[in-house]
């Protein structure tokens, strides 16, 4: 390469997408600078509470309420413990704005590794129908890619990171390259048998997780030890995180430079050549701004943060982003809707308990509107995540009898929670607040995102169907619940810089390349045209690897200069 700069590429963000971008780019010979707004966390030594039981955690693991309300009033909708608090964003220090009448929980990480340190670890391929749904139904933008474009990259990623799961041959939930599944327990097997015979066509399958069931010695990673303490950081490297998987690979090339505490504010741009010419960031420790340059930029700051950076890249005195020729930047923001859950008791089998703690249990794949419109009053569908377990018996009274009683277990409880697909709406959008800025001088992101009738009808159906399935399968004391559905709480926020073939209606092309800048690739959740009902991270990984492959070919061909 003829580049005279110190780096061949800059990767903004170090999470699930940024980590993979850095690995792929460095392995292809590029010198990469990775920027992340968070503090540095090293694998193993950066997990102070790994392996610690409650009695060795600050405040026994329970974050004091005053601190939650002062500093983690958004993060609390995630999965906070004092053992993972450091990995979550401080909401007081890093504010954002929601429009009156709308709520959005922007649950963010605070460390290098991003959400890969605190994610739920579920891994699903999208189906062919997921990529076709927008076109078939005339909703949102058509995906410029199809399943076959992504399938080889799914395979590549799955084999590399290790995904446990069961082969099911379901057309609407394609199998991954699996390691053996996490086993079901005796109660789940019972529910599976009865549910599948009561509801032909519906399936109850093993969880699909990035928690490994086989070692990867070549990556210094061990299989899951069934501690279920993933979010403390896992020194076994048993699940996918940047720290355990992509960072070591990128570092092994000798071509990676990491700059933590680097808060990117905007991209510098040359409108004549339509190229990104620099990345401006503020050092969070010193407050000093710097500009770094490279011929290629991968923006992987997380869906909403990437949109914020793109929006804040604009000529002085104007409101219009360099990257918003289409007028769609910040629009079509989505999240899974998921505050609906159903629980029931599994009768019998009380001689059995669980040994070990699984990080995930079972999945009921989507069965609504599969292939055809079921006429159920909403489009798309939902799946359920869940599992069966036994809790210690509740205390009765006090004293020796209570203590003795708590040595026993309650009956098996089987619980599921629905994850529903949210449609892309043009007016579910984020924008930059005209006057409010954060402590780095960056305009705050403003959210105007709400769930609509389709999503709420879908959740009502998920509740009814969930209750029906559990009752007809023979569970007793079946109850269901629903809490307020607030976008962002699934932490699957997506959209805002969608892909498309037409530069007039999309921000990115089919290679994740900005229509307005050939040397800029955006490969995190912001690229999504629709969100399926399955967890998205595996798709971000696959699309990132695919984009890197294309970008490097273009770079070598001189097409990005």
């Amino acid at each position, binding site marked *: 390469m003829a580049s005279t700069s110190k780096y061949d590429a800059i990767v903004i963000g170090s999470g699930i997408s940024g980590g993979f971008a850095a690995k792929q780019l460095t392995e292809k010979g590029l010198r990469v600078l990775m920027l992340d707004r968070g*503090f540095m966390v090293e694998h193993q030594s950066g997990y102070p509470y790994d392996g610690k*039981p*409650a*009695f060795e955690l*600050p*405040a*026994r*693991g329970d*974050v*004091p*309420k*005053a*601190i939650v309300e*002062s*500093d983690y009033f958004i993060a609390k909708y995630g999965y906070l413990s*004092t053992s993972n*608090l450091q990995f979550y964003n*401080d909401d*007081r*220090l890093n*504010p954002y*704005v929601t429009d009156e009448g709308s709520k959005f929980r922007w649950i963010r990480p605070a460390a290098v590794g991003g959400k890969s340190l605190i994610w739920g670890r579920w891994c699903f391929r999208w189906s062919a129908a997921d990529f076709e749904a927008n076109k078939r139904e005339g909703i949102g933008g058509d995906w410029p890619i199809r399943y076959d474009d992504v399938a080889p990259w799914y395979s590549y990623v799955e084999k590399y990171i290790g995904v446990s799961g069961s082969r099911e041959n379901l057309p609407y939930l394609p199998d991954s390259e699996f390691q053996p599944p*996490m*086993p*079901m*327990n*005796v109660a789940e*097997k019972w529910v599976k048998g009865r549910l599948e015979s009561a509801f032909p066509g519906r399936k109850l399958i093993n969880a699909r997780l990035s928690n490994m069931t086989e070692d990867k010695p070549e990556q210094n990673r061990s299989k899951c*030890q*069934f*501690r279920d303490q993933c979010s403390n950081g896992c020194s076994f490297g048993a699940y996918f995180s940047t720290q355990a998987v992509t960072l070591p690979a990128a570092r092994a090339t000798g071509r990676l430079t990491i700059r933590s505490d680097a808060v990117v504010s905007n991209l510098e741009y040359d409108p004549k050549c339509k190229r990104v010419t620099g990345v401006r960031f503020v050092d*969070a*420790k010193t407050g000093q701004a710097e500009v770094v340059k490279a011929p290629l930029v991968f923006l992987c700051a997380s869906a909403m943060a990437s949109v914020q950076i793109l929006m804040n890249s604009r000529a002085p005195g104007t409101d219009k982003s360099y990257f918003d020729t289409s007028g769609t930047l910040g629009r079509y923001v989505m999240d899974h809707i998921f505050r609906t859950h159903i629980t029931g008791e599994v009768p019998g089998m*009380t*001689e*059995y*308990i*669980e*040994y*070990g*703690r*699984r990080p995930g249990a079972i999945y009921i794949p989507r069965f609504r509107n599969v292939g055809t419109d079921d006429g159920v009053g909403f489009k798309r569908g939902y799946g359920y995540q869940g599992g069966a377990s036994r809790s*210690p018996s509740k*205390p009765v*009274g*006090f*004293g*020796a009898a*209570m*203590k*003795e009683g*708590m*040595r*026993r*277990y309650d009956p098996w409880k089987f619980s599921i929670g629905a994850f529903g697909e949210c449609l892309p709406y043009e007016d579910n959008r984020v924008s930059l607040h005209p006057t*409010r*800025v954060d*402590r780095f*001088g960056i305009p*705050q992101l403003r959210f105007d995102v709400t769930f609509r009738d389709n999503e709420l009808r879908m959740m009502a159906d998920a509740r009814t169907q969930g209750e029906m399935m559990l009752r007809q399968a023979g569970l007793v004391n079946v109850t269901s619940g629903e809490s307020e559905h607030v976008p962002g709480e699934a932490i699957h926020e997506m959209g805002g810089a969608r892909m498309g073939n037409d530069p007039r209606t999309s921000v990115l092309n089919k290679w994740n390349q900005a229509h307005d800048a050939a040397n800029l690739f955006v490969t995190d959740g912001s690229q999504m045209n629709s969100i399926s009902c399955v967890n998205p991270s595996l798709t971000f990984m696959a699309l990132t690897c695919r984009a890197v492959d294309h970008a490097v070919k273009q770079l070598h061909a001189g097409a990005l200069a």
Partner: protein
Amino acid sequence: MIDRRTALAGMAALFGAPLFAPIARAAGLVGKDSRPVISEGPPSVQVFTAPQRALMTQLSERVIPTTDTPGAIKAGVPDYIEKLLADWALPQERIPILAGLDAIEAKCIQDYKVPTAQATPEQLDALLTAAMNAQFADGAPFFVAFRQLVITGYYTSEIGMTQEQEYLPVPGEYHGDYLYSNVNKVYTA
């Protein structure tokens, strides 16, 4: 007195704009240490009077007594409760505990003509039962909150997790059909 930093941070939120640098520093909003720190070590304020603490200690042992495994006192539950109420819980969460302890002290003198320090275990159990059954003012809110504190403190303690219950630091494997009779205990989460 309201902590000055808290007050300033609240004001900072009002502005929603970059703070004048000296104000930002005073409010603790700049620098890498500006995240709150969870208090550890001894309680930073005294929650209980000496008699209240003695009663709270005795009652914790009545809720989870020593049996074939150690009880609440050996497991450090009284220290946990005092630390929690001093530094981890909200200040108003002390109210039902303190009011209940005082009510139990008064009822002990009324019913048994002795202070709780001289009450028998049976008398303390009767007082706790009366609280549980809401037989005196401040009794039921005390019992609900206090039992929860004792149970949480006990089952998150080393003794509670490793002696009363069974803790598997690194299970290494998973069995979904393990016989309870192999252990006859509860595995900690």
